[in-house]
């Protein structure tokens, strides 16, 4: 039994940053990289299934990205993933979520997992489409925004609870194998133990080239993507106003604003 977890190394921004010379992204020097928060929950869900199962369950994490992504994959290995795969080619730079989904799909075909987990979205780009595009390429059933999962290895069905608007949950039975995009809060992700970190440092990360996935440079990158970033910029400041004055005066002004807003 195998669960494949698609993960992404995301970038967080500092308070002060600079836009790249081509105006299409933030200068990499100002980015702080870490494992996507949603993917931490996806991995934990896979680990829970592995640890509670009577049969052997292999958890494989996969990511599309350059060398620096190894750090995030090692974090997954330290938390208990059995294997880590990283796919990259410089020609993949600029790929949108759909192209990344295509690359992941080829890995999934090769690995033949019984379930695929992905985060609902990435915290840096927030397209929320990678997992769903994988399901589409594979023609597998999928459920998005999964807040609860009942599944045992070997089952041909899983029951998921999907988070909807207004605090509603939707309980869905889904055929397996399936692609599930996992929501924050479904579990409590673990910290990697020191022992796990030490062991992860010696585990290999399988580096896969596009050619090994029957893909070429022509299949990936900005040119093959259905969406392309035209520019990235900080919008002009809105109507925010600093409330000045003594503390009591600031409090009085806030009360006045609230009352005006409420029509009082």
């Amino acid at each position, binding site marked *: 039994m195998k669960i494949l977890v698609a993960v992404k190394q995301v970038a967080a921004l500092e308070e*002060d940053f*600079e836009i790249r010379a081509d105006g299409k992204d933030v200068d990499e*020097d*100002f980015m*702080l990289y870490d494992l996507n928060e949603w993917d931490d929950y996806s991995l934990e869900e896979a680990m829970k299934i592995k640890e509670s199962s009577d049969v052997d369950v292999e958890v494989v994490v996969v990511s599309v990205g350059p060398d620096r992504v190894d750090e995030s994959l090692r974090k997954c290995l330290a938390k208990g993933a059995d294997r880590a795969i990283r796919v990259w080619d410089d020609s993949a730079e600029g790929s949108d979520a759909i192209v990344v989904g295509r690359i992941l799909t080829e890995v999934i075909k090769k690995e033949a997992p019984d379930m695929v987990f992905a985060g609902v979205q990435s915290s840096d780009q927030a397209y929320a489409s990678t997992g769903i595009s994988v399901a589409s390429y594979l023609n597998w059933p999928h459920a998005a925004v999964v807040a609860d999962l009942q599944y045992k290895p070997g089952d041909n069905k899983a029951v998921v609870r999907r988070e909807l608007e207004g605090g509603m949950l939707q309980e869905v039975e889904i055929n397996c194998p399936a692609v599930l995009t996992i929501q924050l809060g479904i579990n409590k992700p673990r*910290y990697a133990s*020191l022992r796990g970190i030490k062991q992860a440092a010696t585990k290999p990360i399988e580096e896969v080239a596009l050619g090994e996935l029957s893909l070429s440079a022509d299949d990936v990158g900005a040119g093959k993507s259905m969406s392309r970033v035209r520019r990235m910029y900080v919008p002009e400041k809105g109507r925010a106003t600093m409330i000045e004055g003594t503390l*009591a*005066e600031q409090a009085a002004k806030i009360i006045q604003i609230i009352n005006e807003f409420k029509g009082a």
Partner: protein
Amino acid sequence: MSVLSMRYGKKQHLLSEMDMPDSTDALVKLAIKAGDPYVAAAVHELATGISKRQLEMQILESRRTALSLARWEHTPSSVLAALSNIGDGAVDIRLDKNPNTSSEVLSTLYEDASNKRNLGLTRLIARHRNSEAGILKGIVLFEDDEESLLALSKNPAAGPEVLASLAERFAGSELAVALNKNIAQNISASPDLLARIYAVSDFHTRAAIISHANCPGALITEATASDEPLIMRVLAKDKTVAPDVLLKYAESDDAGVRCGVAANAAMPLSLISHLLGDSSELVRREIASRRDLQVEHIAVLMADQDGWVRQRLARNTAVPLQVLASLAADENSDVRRAVARNAGCPVELLEILAADKDDWVRAAVAYQHNSPQRLLVGLAGNDDVDVLSGVANNPNTPQQILEKLVASEEADVRRGVILNKAASRNTLLPLLEDPYYLHRILMVANPSMHELDKWNLREDPDYQVRFSVYRWAVEKIAPINTRYIVGNEVIRRRRV
């Protein structure tokens, strides 16, 4: 080979056998060998000559590292000074925001910002707590940027003289109103300056001035003639205000004014009975916290419908035991919890509350230092994380229980043991491998651990742990033994 695998490969085994260095030279050499910019930053202030340059090469190995260290609130000031020499505008912004940046570096940065007319940096320097009074005086005299001047007016580092110059330069201008409001709240404002501002200000600024620690007594006396509620609220809390004024304020229509009176320790006792029946629960809550309550007052407050009034009463250490016993049976769990948190709560009541149906009440018993061992042993059988955290924190908890709690899956519980001053080294030892990096940093600071326990964390996977180990070693080998003040800054000298 990755940095991580180098740290945990064969090389690591050899390094682990090394004892802690006993000299600054040995520590610096080891830090250079580690090849880690955060370790280099930790020992940088001890290094000289070639060693210092080698460490700086590691610190400046990439722009990312430089930006990261310039921003980090733990970066030592000597490293920030080195970073100020690279002439990177993005680094400079971070240095101006970093609370550890020294006055010398800020002075240099200001000179540069001033020459380039960089208002952004000037504003940051104007608000920085380490900015020298001389630099701030320069901003007061020569800058016209309102944002810089407003930032400076809030900065306590400005000192009374600079603030007086600021007020003087802009007296009568449109900007003066906003500046005066900030100066009125600035702890460095002198009594004279406050008096001058008071004379030309609105009631908001006046209220801030009369609540200022440096407010002249004459202004307080003058202000008692005011019928402005905001000013009366401030005066009602003031212990120096005459009793007859407080009697007048106790009749105010404004609940905030009456609250101030109720909280005033100098209030005439006769007013307690009057304010006990106040229509505002906020006033009654203040009364319930007073230490001079009489039996008849307490009887009224115990029957108050407002749970917060009874809660305040239950936390009041001046309340007799019979009252606490009665409040321990209150239907409101927050009131029962307040009894358990009362520093004077006796063991008999804690025993009752330890069996409370509410986890939050039992947690208060677990944290209570009056709780005896037998109660804590019983509470250790709970599965609520707050209760267990309290047991873990409590210095009366037996070591055998703490040893079990060290293995808890809940980080809060394990942290409780680390913070427990009675936890022995043997109990704490497993936590040197705690998965949560912050716990390992706390272990470096834990006085129960041996030097080698801490030193062995120097190759931890987390850079913050490695940094804290080397900082601890710096402090150990070259403790700060001289402190003197230059300008606004405490200068520290290490014995090297």
